[in-house]
């Protein structure tokens, strides 16, 4: 009893104090990290469900936007985190639940993004002629569904030929497919200009907002809403015969088939579901960024999402959320912060052990070392803790 009270007090204090810290020290990355850490604490603490939900709601719906007023970049980070949480949850279905190693997952993200980019900008006039495009901005909402369907269809098309391949070959084929999509995006500016090649597509329309809310806040809430839906969908899928069939396929697909699980159909379903989340977020991404080009959809991004799922825990929803948050924050804040900090030290003429930091080669920028981060995460997790930081917990049920 006492522990629960202590935990509750600590949870509320953590959230409140860290939020206050951020408002007092808006430039301090550490304060923002503490705020995020407090949310992790709220998740893990032994507090009643209503308090947990309430604190999350408070933090995400009220405190975060307030922090956004104090430092707009943090809101941007939070929005990016949200986008990658949805992607990680999608990949979690494919890799974590069904056990299919998809190394080209970013292709579905790209398909969704380009689907809105093409018609939501004047670019489509180049394809279809005339000046009917861009479509009215409110059609963005319809395109959330279109992006979902298009990505899911792409998932099925990809899945049909490749799903009978064994694990490592499946991985390589999906990698090849992801690369094909990227090169196509880069080169389909002739004979018909579908993607405008490396120049990318811009300007992409944004949907009208309600009550004149500024776009940074608007996209934050939109992403948050979609993430909530994605999490709900994931939980429902996981705790159903569909999720159990996927896990059985991952465990032993021969036995699963012998028990009546139709392998191809279930694997296609996994691909389609995973792809659909990426497709929806792709549409949001292109509207938010106003400009997209093939550079955002490379193998690096696919591996980044994989690293998120692996770090957090394969097959685990809270794991995917944690993994996405940690990796995105690492890239957008920690690495970038290191770069900035290093520059400040250089400018201040600081020396370390007699070696002046200003003499460090200009090419050395910590912000660019995402690959090293992903690489280290993947190797260390596989060797030390393959089940992830927040492993999937077996469902315990009251049996009659």
């Amino acid at each position, binding site marked *: 009893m006492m522990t629960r009270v202590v935990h509750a007090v600590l949870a509320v204090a953590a959230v409140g104090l860290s939020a206050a810290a951020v408002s007092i020290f808006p430039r301090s990355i550490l304060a923002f990290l503490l705020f995020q850490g407090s949310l992790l604490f709220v998740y893990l603490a032994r507090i009643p469900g209503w308090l947990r939900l309430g604190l999350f709601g408070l933090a995400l719906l009220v405190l975060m936007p307030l922090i956004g007023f104090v430092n707009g970049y943090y809101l941007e980070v939070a929005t990016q985190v949200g986008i990658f949480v949805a992607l990680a949850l999608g990949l979690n279905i494919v890799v974590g639940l069904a*056990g299919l*190693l998809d*190394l080209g997952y970013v292709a579905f993200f790209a398909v969704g993004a380009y689907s809105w980019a093409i018609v939501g900008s004047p670019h489509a006039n180049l394809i279809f002629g005339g000046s009917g495009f861009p479509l009215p901005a409110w059609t963005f909402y319809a395109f959330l569904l279109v992006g979902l369907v298009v990505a899911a269809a792409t998932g099925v098309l990809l899945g049909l*030929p*490749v799903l009978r*391949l*064994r*694990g*490592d*070959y499946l*991985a*390589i*084929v999906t*990698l*090849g*497919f992801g*690369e*094909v999509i990227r*090169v*196509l995006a*880069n*080169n389909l500016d*002739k*004979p018909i200009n579908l993607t405008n090649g490396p120049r990318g597509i811009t300007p992409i329309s944004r949907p009208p907002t309600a009550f004149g809310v500024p776009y940074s806040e608007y996209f934050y809430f939109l992403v948050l809403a979609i993430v909530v839906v994605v999490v709900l969908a994931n939980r429902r899928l996981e705790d159903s015969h569909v999720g159990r069939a996927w896990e059985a396929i991952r465990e032993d697909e021969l036995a699963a088939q012998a028990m009546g699980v139709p392998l191809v159909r279930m694997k296609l379903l996994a691909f389609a579901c995973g792809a659909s989340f990426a497709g929806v977020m792709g549409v949001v991404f292109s509207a938010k960024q106003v400009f997209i080009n093939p550079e955002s959809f490379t*193998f690096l991004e696919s*591996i980044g999402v*994989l690293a998120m799922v*692996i770090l957090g825990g394969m097959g685990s929803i809270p794991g995917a959320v944690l993994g996405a948050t940690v990796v995105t924050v690492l890239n957008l804040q920690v690495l970038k912060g290191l770069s900035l900090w290093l520059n400040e030290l250089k400018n201040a003429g600081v020396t370390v052990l007699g070696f002046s930091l200003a003499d*460090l*080669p*200009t*090419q*050395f920028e910590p912000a*660019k*070392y*995402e*690959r*090293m981060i*992903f*690489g*280290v*995460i*993947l*190797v*260390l997790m*596989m*060797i030390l803790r*393959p089940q992830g930081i927040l492993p999937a917990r077996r469902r315990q049920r009251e049996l009659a």
Partner: protein
Amino acid sequence: MDFELLVGILPQVLIDGIILGFMYALIALGYTMVYGVLEFINFAHSEIFIVGAFVGVEILLGLKAAGLLEALPWPLLLLIVVLAGMTVSGLLAVAIERAAYRPLRGAPRLIPLISAIGVSFFLQDVIRLVESIWRNAFNLVYPTIDALNERFEITTTIDVSVKSLVVIAGALLMLWVLHALVNRTKVGTAIRAVAEDQAAASLMGIDVNRIIALTFLIGGAMGGAAGVLFGVQYGLINPYTGFVPGLKAFTAAVLGGIGNIPGAMIGGIVLGLLEAFAASYLSLLTGGAFGAEYKDIFAFSMLILILIFRPKGLLGEIVRERA
């Protein structure tokens, strides 16, 4: 369609294809040997390959700075850089196996594969880091060795650079040495035994760990040699250059039959020729609609098609007996 033009460029296309093919064959050997012994795709092999290229460029740049580049005869220069590249890459491969793969030996297939992907990414940025600090640049250019760039006339219309001939000769030599090693020596027999049945091989007294390390050493050395030759042939390298040739070489290994060493050689050459043809003729045949940029898609599509329709490859795969 200008038939004369198509035929006219044919010899050059063939030569380009063969050079490319031998390069792919050398890299493919690393993939196929490791797959034969461990049933595992060594994703990091593309970086082992490019490390060789970096070793080569560093040595040549160092010699150039010391003013020795012109002084030494080019065969000696090449020998030095190729041997250096082979050594470093080979040892790197062994180190990677020990650190990132051996702890995962019993685990389900996907776990070491994910680890290999991690190693690949890690190495790319390590190379970048080292070169950024050492040279403040990581897009490096191989210094030209004039003797190598001289062109050699085969007929009145076809000529080829000394460089290309050297690359082809070097690759052939190494392939021959490897073939002899694997088929005529005791060590080679041990490797083939471990590839076929690890448990039985160990019962016969073969130190499986040592043989696996040796396989990585040889495969890595081949990759490193390919890296140096790649740098000599194409000139420009950066830490991320290994990825695409690596993937294509893996395609070549599968095309020839994974685990099958002659298969990797054949697969490499076939793929190199196909790619050279695609690069040169695609634009001409489609009226400019699809040009040489699509040659990468061509190789990737080949990969997808082979894995789906003929995963055993041309010569048949050689993988472990499944219990």
